């Protein structure tokens, strides 16, 4: 009995030491980790400034393993663009745009990359739709998600107080709940708008020229030839082949290695 108690005491002591150690060591690890990412980013920028875009890309890729940052994707997109990989550049600009939708440089380079690709997609923007889209994308997706959750809670809290409180407090609470509900609806619509943008079905062609076929195999008939940078929607998967749809409705099957999925990001 005494031996068992002693054993338990030793176990408790070890656990305590580990917990205390973890408590003190973790804050030390986090800055070191952050410094490494920042160093990689700076090293990549230096390589880019020196015109060594290939080396810059290696550093950007390494940094992207640790953080998801709009500027990181933007710079990596630039390195891809300088190396002639229009498709990969467009994929990175798209990722940066989701994280920082109001950044003018990101939007400019995204549009530039799209204009530079061989396959032109003529889009005549509907002014109303354009206005609504801009209105719904005033803030980034992460903020919209958080705001939607908080607003949902606050709206229902107000409604709960309306039901709970007396008639004197009811009127101002109803007004506050209505205002909160309106904001909640706005953030919900914004979330939906962003959700369409970050759909995992979105992909970019990353090979210079690609033949889309009528079936998942080389033996099928050629349907259409597309080029680097074309943004497509993945409709179906079969083995190593995917069925993609290009803007305008045309599409076909090709090997999935010819595409880069935009979201979730690599």
């Amino acid at each position, binding site marked *: 009995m005494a031996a068992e108690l002693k054993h338990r005491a030793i176990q408790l002591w070890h656990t305590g030491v580990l917990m205390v150690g973890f408590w003190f060591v973790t804050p030390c690890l986090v800055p070191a980790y952050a410094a490494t990412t920042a160093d990689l980013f700076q090293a990549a920028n230096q390589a880019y400034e020196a015109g060594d875009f290939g080396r810059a890309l290696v550093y950007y890729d390494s940094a992207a393993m640790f*953080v998801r940052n709009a*500027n990181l994707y933007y710079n990596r997109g630039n390195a891809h663009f300088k190396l002639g990989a229009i498709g990969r550049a467009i994929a990175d600009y798209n990722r940066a745009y989701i994280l*920082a939708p109001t950044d003018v440089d990101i939007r400019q380079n995204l549009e*530039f990359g799209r204009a530079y690709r061989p396959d032109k997609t003529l889009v005549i923007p509907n002014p109303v739709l354009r206005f609504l889209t801009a209105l719904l994308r005033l803030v980034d997706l992460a903020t919209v998600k958080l705001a939607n959750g*908080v607003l949902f809670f606050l709206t229902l809290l107000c409604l709960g107080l309306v039901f709970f409180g007396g008639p004197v407090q009811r009127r101002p609470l109803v007004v506050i709940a209505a205002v909160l509900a309106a904001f909640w609806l706005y953030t919900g619509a914004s979330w939906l708008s962003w959700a369409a943008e970050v759909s995992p079905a979105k992909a970019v062609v990353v090979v210079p020229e690609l033949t889309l076929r009528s079936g998942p195999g080389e033996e099928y*008939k050629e349907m*259409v*030839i597309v080029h680097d940078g074309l943004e497509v929607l993945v409709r179906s998967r079969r083995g190593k082949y995917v069925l993609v749809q290009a803007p305008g*409705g045309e599409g076909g099957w090709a090997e999935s290695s010819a595409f880069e999925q935009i979201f979730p990001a690599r």
Partner: protein
Amino acid sequence: MRYFPVRYAWMVLLALFLSAAGAELNFSADVDRTTVGLGEELQLTVTVRGTNIGSIPRPQLPELSDFNNLGSTSSQSTNISFVNGRMTQEQTVSFIYFLSPKKVGSLSIGPCKLEYKGETYQTQPISITVTKESQAPPARQGQQPQRPFDPFDWDPFAPPQRQPRTTGRIQDDIHIVAAADRTVVYQGEQVTVSFSLYTRRQISDLRLTEVPSFNGFWVENLYDAKQLQYRTREYGGRQYDAALLKKVALFPTQSGELRISPMKIAGQAISSGGFFFQSAEPFEISSGAITVTVKPLPEQGKPASFTGGVGRFEVTAKLSADSSVGGEPLNLSVRISGTGNLRLIGPPKLPAITGVRVLNPETKDKTSDEGGGLSGSREFVFPLMPQVDGKHSIPSLELGFFDPKAGTYYTRSTPALEFVARGAVPTAGVVETGSGMRVLGSDIRHIKPCLRPGSGGWSTAPEWWIWLFYPMGIVVLTLGVVLGRHQRRLEQDRGYARRTRSGKLVKKRLAQARGLLEQGDERGFYAALSQAVVGYVGDRFNIESQGMTNEELTVELTRQGVSPTGVTELLDIVKNCDAARFSPGMVSCSGREMLERAVRTLEAL
């Protein structure tokens, strides 16, 4: 389910496109004439035409046992069109075969086949009428041959211009001589080979029985005899009537010892025995084979711009226009002219031009064999599609070639060219230059110097806690509704309020009774216990129990659904309490037992 109609529409679109795409490749065969004289040349053109097609394999010819295949060539052209902003690239590849019929009559060229991308295409068969008479247009007077007769269909009734010699054996009198102007050359250097007929006899029914093969060479057909033009030539110390049958320019495509196989012809040698007495003797003769030693091109000094040219060339470049509006393409023509293997020269390497998309070039050839070697020009037309606005520069292009006479490489270059594009990118940023020209964003914007602070993490930040807000909100709302309803009922429904509070009250009263018991105040204890029991019953069933008699209480409790046992037990407790208060000693159980009994009975209600 919401997306099902969209998916369905997509499949319909795909099916429609499938059906439309079936007609993309056009495969046809045609001849330059359907009536041809025996031994005359016939041109069979097999054409493949399609949009956005890749490299086309050589089509399979049908069995041509009734024809001699005299050689082939091919040509290619590309046509680019824009319809509603969409570019279509139509490519036409023509394979041209030179055939010669072997016999008179109605012959047929069977269907040609093409295997392309897993599909088999087939042409219609072609009927050819072969006559004994020549179908070739009559030669002009100035070019009248010395002896105008068809070598492969000689007319014995035509007046001979030269009396054939009939003396000697056929092998001594008739020869085919294959001759090459050189037998040691560099790879790609021209070798001119001719096949000539030497005869001392009059011959008829001349026909080609074996066509020479030129494996390892690119062949340019320079001459094929339609009518033999005899000239007196000396061969082996004897005089012959000699006529050129065939002449080709050969360009070796590989190094090593290459063999040109012999040409064979057959016919009848006419022996004259007087005006009415002629006899014909069949013969078949063959030329000798030729072996050409091909030296590889030296690696030393080979310029990077070398694309296979061997000979002497000049290169020029020009643009079809000096400006482009609205993204319209321009043509950059690079023309290579000179003497040598023009058709083997590949397109010059065009460096990447920022802001300009360069499409595959169309090739146009113009060649002739005047001057001893194949000369002329090869033109590569590159369509240029401006992608961004502004001034675009096409750098100097270089062409490297090997001069076999000098045994060294040379490089020729074109001057740099420029053009201005406007309206290719309507939404690009505008920069004013010193010259006043508006340059619209010709490059991406520069990189960011540091990581974005606080830039989210739609993928790194934990999202699970965001989702907690939703169930928490529902819980809060539910609580508000339930508690609000409870509050209002407490205020409005007395029975509900009494029943709700009865539990708390009875606990309080029982605790009070227990305290009195512990203090030893038995009268007070029984009074409090009785009040607790009767009060609880009153609160629980919302009745005024304090003033009721036992009979009234029994009736009311029974009406409220309390079991008879429960009613009896309650009344018994109340009766015992009263008895203990007013007649101590009449109660058989202790106060603690009475308290526990009361608790059990009230819990059972």
